């Protein structure tokens, strides 16, 4: 599979058309090869746009790129939760993955709690891929890739990006680097906490109603930032009606990039542009808030739902 093939996949996927299951297989093999070389914390230069949950809302991802600019010219960190709930998990994840494989250093894909075998069987990605391909193969290829996705990113040694939040088992970034991440998402432990935890008005850590991860409070965030010399923790994982929300003296921000979540929440979406000034010493943050794509820009190609996989 060369760059020519990849460009063809990208062209198809950005029109919301499927690539065939053999092509998915090739793409996923190549993706695993690239992702397996990434550390648990990917180091990113300070010229990048950070995006939150997408959840299979393909046309709202297109809207995101209209606002933020296209890959490769704009660098992106996605904070996870590419699949489930929306109608186009397959196209959304494969499109982002194809961009990742084509331009590995322009695109960072972090693992979210929905990038797991268990959640995708409950919240839609499994059903969608079986319906669109008539076989479970594509879901298998994609979930194998999920196991390789990185856990976090660090922008200019200053902004820590993760899907959910912090963990009582982790006080220093180096402890994240030691996790053996290439496994199906576990139910507890440090890795699970990074994918599942939420900030809240609690002292220290508290139990989470989600059934995984913890609630963590201001004291934890400030200590973590001090210990690791961070200016900000950027995470997603929770719907924010305004698209983004600061907490704890602006030491933590939730970024949510899925406008009109589940096609009915009526929320705004946001992305966070980071860029350095003053010979790289000051990291600027710039939030762009936008809405779900209007109906006129939501035109899926007509397609036959059941493929002729049983032909003579």
């Amino acid at each position, binding site marked *: 599979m060369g760059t020519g093939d990849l460009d063809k996949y990208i062209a198809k996927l950005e029109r919301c058309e499927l690539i065939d299951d053999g092509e998915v297989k090739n793409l996923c093999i190549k993706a695993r090869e690239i992702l397996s070389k990434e550390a648990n914390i990917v180091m990113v*230069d300070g010229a990048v746009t950070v995006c939150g949950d997408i959840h299979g809302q393909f046309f709202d991802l297109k809207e995101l790129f*209209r*606002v933020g600019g*296209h890959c490769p*010219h*704009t660098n992106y960190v996605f904070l996870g939760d590419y699949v489930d709930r929306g109608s186009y998990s397959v196209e959304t994840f494969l499109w982002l993955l194809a961009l990742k494989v084509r331009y590995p250093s322009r695109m960072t894909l972090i693992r979210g709690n929905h990038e797991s075998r268990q959640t995708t069987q409950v919240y839609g990605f499994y059903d969608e891929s079986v319906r669109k391909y008539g076989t479970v193969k594509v879901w298998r290829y994609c979930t194998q890739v999920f196991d390789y996705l990185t856990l976090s990113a660090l922008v200019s040694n200053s902004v820590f990006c993760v899907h959910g939040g912090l963990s009582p088992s982790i006080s220093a970034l180096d402890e994240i680097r030691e996790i053996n991440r290439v496994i199906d998402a576990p139910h507890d432990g440090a890795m699970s906490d990074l994918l599942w935890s939420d900030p809240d008005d609690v002292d220290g850590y508290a139990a989470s109603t989600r059934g995984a991860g913890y609630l963590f409070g201001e004291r934890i965030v400030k200590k973590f930032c001090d210990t690791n010399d961070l200016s900000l923790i950027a995470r997603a994982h929770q719907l924010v009606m305004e698209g983004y929300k600061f907490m704890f003296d602006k030491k933590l921000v939730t970024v949510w990039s899925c406008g009109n979540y589940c096609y009915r929440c009526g929320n705004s979406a946001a992305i966070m542009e980071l860029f350095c000034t003053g010979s790289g010493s000051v990291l600027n943050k710039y939030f*762009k808030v936008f809405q779900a794509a209007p109906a006129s820009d939501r035109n899926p190609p007509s397609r036959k739902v059941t493929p*002729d996989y*049983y032909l*003579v």
Partner: protein
Amino acid sequence: MESLHPIAVLIDELKSEDPALRLNSVKRLGNIALALGDKRTRDELIPFLSDSVDDDDDILITMAEELVTLLDLVGGPEHIHVLLQPLELLACVDAKAVRDAAVESLKKISAKLPQQHITHFINLVLDLLAGEWFNYKTSGAGLVAQAYSRTQNSDHKERLIKAYELLGSDELPMVRRSCAETLSDVVSVVEEGVAREKLLPLFEKLQRDEQDSVRSVNIANAHSFLKKLQTSDSDRVFVVFENSARDEAWRVRRLVAESLFSLLQISSQSKTTFCKVLKALLLDKEPEVRCCASVELSRCCVLIDSRDLLVTYILPQLEELVKDDADYVRAAIAGSLSSVSTVVGKDITVSRLRPLLARLLSDDKSDVRLAVIDNIVKVIDVAGVDIVEDMLFKAVFDLAKDPAWRVRRSVISIVPVLAKKLDPSKFEDSLAPLCNTWLGDAVFAIRQAAIENMKALTQIYSMAWAQTVFIPKLKALSEDTNYLFRITALFAISSLISEFTGDVIGTELLPIVIRLARDSVANVRFTAATTLGDLAKYLDKRFVLQKIKPILMNLSSEDPDVDVQNFAALALTKL
């Protein structure tokens, strides 16, 4: 021909327990029939299919469609009628989608039926029309026009029309509705006398139906009657239409508004009558109806084409509509004013329409203002740029800052159109700074639109003009702290080069690109590499080899970023 084995499989699959396999097999009825030969197709396959109409909808729809492919496989025209039986059964099932597919296929098959078998088809249609259940009757309604046009027997024709008329008085609304839905087709195939004596009363009756869904569908039939009937009878059609404009159901009134234009095109009615109907609809108590009438006004007033009629009947309504409570009504009327302007001419535009335009251009809703601006060029053509200029600038400025980026994008796309009408000196004072603001917009799509706009304006005015207006802005963008704006400067240069001479490119643009090829951000460097490749063909060959090639060579081999290397290598191939 395919080998026999797959055919055997297909035949087996027709009887399979698995619906997916049956569907697969039904999709290949043509292949099966070809393999069986015409006699076995007639004697075995068709009766088998007739026995198989109790199946999933998908399979039955496919079967109805595929039966048409057997037209040439049943042993010639004299055997085509065997296909009618399974389709008649399919036309009676519960699922509407299956019945509709069967009716479509019956039309195609009956079109090929030889004359000696037409009676068979006519009886089939008559049986359906007289059927016990509404399914039969609605399918029958869909076939009346086809049956009528195929038969030459006056007794057949009479019986068909008689049975069809009864549908209009059926106790079930879906049957009456199917009558209304098919009436246009039937009108178009009958003789004028039948249309006048039999079908026109049916049309009038359906317009008095107690169900608004029946009345709504019926409106569309007015057009066919007007085409069919003599002028003297068209009054009766128009009376029905006028009454519908006062229907108690707003859906019906809205459909009247939607059909005004098509009737106006063919009707011999006086335009005054049309204006009265249009006036009533513009004043309707439902905003949905007012909105629809306001949209239709745009094309209707061109056909009415009379200044006096518009002034008498329509202008007073416009003065109300620009104050309408519903913003979508105001947006609709804002879009139609320019067409009114072309008909009423300069004086009325200045005295009566200008205040309305001014009001709409300062509307609270951006959609309304945008609708005016979208169409303003027509008004300028009628009355000159002076009458709208001042208010136009203010409106464009306000919309240029609209928080919704799609509104900003719409305004940008209008700017080149306006520029053609405006004096360049005026433009430079008021709109040029705005164009530069868009180049630095936070939204990528706006920056792209601004680049397109910049190129269009350069074509309209001149390179010298663009040089003074845009190049300082491009320089500023190229020094912005945000790498995305530095990239915007490069995109703009790539787009603009075709409008500039090599001299300007070399002295003004190239230095910017060369500087950005050494940027600290890799994305800027590889975009600069692409732009250098784009510039090459506009510059002196030797200059390119001396100055540009070494930069790209260096980027392609020495740069630490692999994307920069790749883009630079690609750009080198363009030199």
